[in-house]
């Protein structure tokens, strides 16, 4: 069966510090991968998605970036965090060409102070 991992679960970082969140998927090949952010009490905002290694599409211009160095690894990064980057970050995967259902990871709660 497929599983999705995210780490760390929680993170507290000072403004201006770098960020690296990692997501890995097991049990499937060539998945579509997604990064979402959810501010407190708000809906999910799609940040990035990837259909293959090295292929990244950005939905919202900001100080975040994403990379996909391996088929089942998706990384969210920032060189300098802003207060507004605080939120709940979710990674998700979907079968490429599949029925559209996305499977979400456990999330990372990021607090920027």
């Amino acid at each position, binding site marked *: 069966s497929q599983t999705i991992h995210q780490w760390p679960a929680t993170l507290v970082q000072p403004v201006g510090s770098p960020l690296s969140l990692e997501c890995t998927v097991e049990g499937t090949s060539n998945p*579509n991968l997604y990064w979402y952010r959810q501010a407190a009490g708000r809906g999910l905002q799609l940040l990035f998605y990837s259909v293959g290694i090295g292929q990244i599409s950005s939905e919202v211009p900001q100080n975040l970036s994403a990379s996909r160095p391996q088929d089942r690894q998706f990384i969210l990064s920032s060189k300098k965090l802003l207060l507004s980057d605080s939120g*709940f970050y979710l990674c998700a995967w979907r079968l490429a060409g599949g029925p559209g259902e996305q499977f979400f*990871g456990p999330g990372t709660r990021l607090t920027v102070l």
Partner: protein
Amino acid sequence: LAKTTQPISMDSYEGQEVNITCSHNNIATNDYITWYQQFPSQGPRFIIQGYKTKVTNEVASLFIPADRKSSTLSLPRVSLSDTAVYYCLVGPRKTGTASKLTFGTGTRLQVTL
């Protein structure tokens, strides 16, 4: 992607049937309607998906009228554990590239005794 409109919140007593309606006036011919459930500090979880008429699974039913401009998620005999945010999404079921889902703010369902 078709925009959706849902009530911000709903309240129900345990044991009642809950119906959450979603409007999607600009739904396209190849769009499906999908509902997700999200508990606090967790990623959304797929509930049900449909194209037209009625779909039923072990947790919910989805009613879609002939014009497909709205849909209703029906939760039979809710319990306290059904307290969550419910999202209605509209988009292609299968795409050649990534399936980008747009999550709105959802409907916050509160179930009480």
